[in-house]
Every structure is written in C-alpha cells, then in structure tokens.
C-alpha cells in the first residue's frame, strides 16, 4: 500500500509523466471527437438513403450502403485499423491521426447508420400516412413529423455509440500511436516508475470521467426530448 502511494506521488510529481498522460488524453479525445463527427455525418447519409422510398435512381446507392454496413459490422475494428494504416494509407508522411480518425469514423458510420435507421423505422407508419393524407410533401413530413420522433428513439443508442468510440480508440496503441492507453503503458514501463498499476488506473479514471460526463449530457438531452410523452408529465 505504501508503495502504491509513493508511486502515485511520483506520477503526479513528475512533469514528464503528467505531460505524457495529458498528451495521450488529448490525442484520444481528438481522434474520438472527429471520428464521431464523421461517423454521425456519414451514418446519417447512409440511414437516409437506406430508409428513403425505393426508386430507380436510389437502387444502386441503397445497395452500396447495405454492402458498406455489412462489411464494416462484419469485420473487427482492429483489422479495419490495420487495413487503413498498412494498406489504404500506407503513404510515408501521411498524418497518422488523420488515418486513425478516418478508420474510426468509417467504422462508427456503419453503427450510427443502423441506429438512425432503426430510429426512423420505429416511428409508426401511421404518422407518415397522416401527413400524406393532409397533402404534405415527403420532405416536410420527414422534417416535422418523422425526424423529431425518431430522434427520441435514437439519442440513447447514439450516446452508447459515442461512448464505445471513445473507449475503442484505445486500440490505436496497436499501430504505435501515443494515446491515453499507450501513455499509461509507456509510463508504467518507464525506468523510474516501473509500475503499471498507478498509470493504468489513472488512465482508467480519465476514460471514466469522459464517459461519465457524456452519459450525464445524454440523460439531460433525453429528458428534454420527452416533453410530448406522458411519462414526462407524471
């Protein structure tokens, strides 16, 4: 126990260690943030194409979207990361962070697309029919009727996906990137520190803090969106 505390003190009193953890943490956040952004934008597009009313000119895009989602969800994230690093972006000098962001972003897009698709499909068909019967154009029906109801169903699952991406970015250490996970391992194996316990638990706390903060925000948003439910009134 005494040794644990002495290591703890050592970690927090060595600027070099703090610096490593902090930089690792920032890299983790950076990759996660942009990956989530790409995942959300691309995922939304895929979901919209997927749920659009079938028509001749959408047949090919719809097919491509299905294939994309199937491949991404059917292969390991770590393998996708390797393919991005060692096959697609195996270009000398190409910024690693961009490759990592794209790898996680493209991966997250497939899951986000499924979440959004599920949310849209969970809105009762009668809601769309009511809009059609009133003579509203499909775009208006989507914007004013379907999307607001779908969002309520989507937010909790989307929150999960955000959390998953943040934690999953830890595997960039497998391609040698210095993220929070890698920083913890690096410090732990350092000559002075020579203990994994303290840096790893410290890194865990960093992840936990971010995830906790995001869960908290999601809960708040959910509550706000539940205005039109009976549940909110009782």
């Amino acid at each position, binding site marked *: 126990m005494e040794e644990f505390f002495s290591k703890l003190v050592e970690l927090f009193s060595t600027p070099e260690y703090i610096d490593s953890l902090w930089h690792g943490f920032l890299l983790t956040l950076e990759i996660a943030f942009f990956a989530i952004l790409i995942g959300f934008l691309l995922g939304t597009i895929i979901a919209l194409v997927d749920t659009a009313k079938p028509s001749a000119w959408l047949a090919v895009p719809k097919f491509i979207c299905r294939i994309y989602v199937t491949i991404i969800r059917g292969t390991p994230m770590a393998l996708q990361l390797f393919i991005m690093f060692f096959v697609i972006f195996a270009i000398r000098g190409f910024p690693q962070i961009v490759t990592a962001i794209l790898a996680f972003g493209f991966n997250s897009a497939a899951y986000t697309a499924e979440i959004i698709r599920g949310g849209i499909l969970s809105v009762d068909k009668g*809601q769309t029919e009511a*809009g*059609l019967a009133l003579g*509203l154009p499909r775009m208006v029906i989507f914007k004013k009727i379907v999307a607001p*109801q779908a969002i309520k169903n989507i937010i909790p699952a989307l929150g999960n996906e955000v959390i998953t991406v943040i934690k999953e970015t830890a595997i960039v250490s497998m391609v040698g990137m210095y993220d929070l996970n890698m920083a913890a391992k690096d410090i732990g194996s350092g000559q002075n520190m020579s203990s994994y316990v303290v840096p790893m638990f410290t890194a865990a706390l960093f992840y936990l803090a971010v995830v906790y903060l995001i869960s908290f925000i999601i809960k708040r948003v959910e509550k706000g969106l539940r205005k*039109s*439910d009976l549940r909110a009134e009782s």
Partner: protein
Amino acid sequence: MISVRNLKKNFGSNKVLRGIDFTLKDGEKVIVLGPSGSGKSTFLRCINRIEEPTTGEIYLDDTLITDKNIEKIRQDIGMVFQHFNLINNLTVMKNLTLAPVILKLMSEEEAEKKAKGLLRHIGLLDKVDAFPASLSGGQKQRVAIIRAMMMEPKVLLFDEPTSALDPESIGDVLALIHELADEGMTIMIVTHEMNFAKEVGTRIVFIDEGKIIEEGTPIEFFEHPKTPRVKEFLKKVL
C-alpha cells in the same frame, strides 16, 4: 365527384383488389361493408393513393389523379384513420394547423382561429395545448376528424373510424360523423357499425375478395339483399 375505373391492387402475388368500378356523387354518404380481408380498406386507401394502385384510373371531378403528382389533390380528400394517427410530437393545436399553414391555405392566425372554433364545437377547447398521448381514444379521433376538416376537403374518407375505440367513445365519434353528413359533406366510410350504416348511408357498397359484389340503398341492401354472399354476411352480423 370521384370515379374509379377497373382499380386493381396487388401486394406481391396477393391480389387484394380485382377490378373495382365505382362512382361517388356530390353529397353522397357511401358505406363500404365487407368481411375482413376483403380489400375495403385498401380500396379507400387507393383513392388518395396512400396505397399506390397497381392499375386502374381514379378521377376527382374531371381530373385523372392516378397519373400525376398527388400531393396537391390530397388536400381535397380528407382521411380519418382507424388508429387516429395524430402527430405524436405536436400539440392538438399544431396537429390542426400544421398542414393548412405549411401549404399556405391560410395564415397562422386564421388557422388557429378556425382550429379553436372547431375544438370548441367538439368540446375539447381545453385540450388545445395537450399532446395526443394525454387524450382518450374518442378524443383523439374527434380531433383527427376536425384536423381533416381544417383542410376544407371536398370529400372525407373514413377507414374504420370506430374500430379501435371503446364502446363509450364510439357514440361520440359517430355523432360527429353524423353531424358532418347532415351538413352535406360527401363521405365514404368503411365501418362495421351496421346501425350507423342504415341511419347515415345513402348507399351501401359491399366488397368481397376485391370486388364490389352488391350495392344499393340501405333499405335495398339490408332488407332485400340480392346475392347469397350478402345474405350470409347479414345473417352473421345482424
């Protein structure tokens, strides 16, 4: 007002409508009867193309509506659904005013004034800011009916408007439809309410296996049915 020629509708290999010819005149109140699965709801839903006909022609007045953009035409054809289909994320007021305002049929103030008038008329003015989830089935359906009326349609289609209601609210909803009928509204209604059919209908249309097999005035239909199929049907439901 509406004429339908050789309307057919397939769901995959399932032939739901097998050639329907039908005319609806101004001011008529047509009751569509038939066993479940006979295609009567599908028939109604094809008229405003919520369900896309497989083949056939539908005219509203003199306009062929099966070959063009239907959105504008739907404004003239009101529809009331079995499950009410009030927009869950909008208040009662917004449910009533959304379409007329977005489609620029009236200004927001005009729409709200009209909506309040109609709500007062059905005794639900106090629900103006309520969300649909807090209304009873009967209340929802009456709001759905005045939502259709907001558009000042030429004809109102009712797809089993009381089938999802408890017995107590069925009366309220039927009374409102009855009132609209008395005011001269052209109405087509798919229902299982035989008494209502006799009372309000000016014509009964009986559909079985995707075809109209008998039609006539309520007296002809209920008291002197011609086909064995209708005789059998009436024996079971009356």
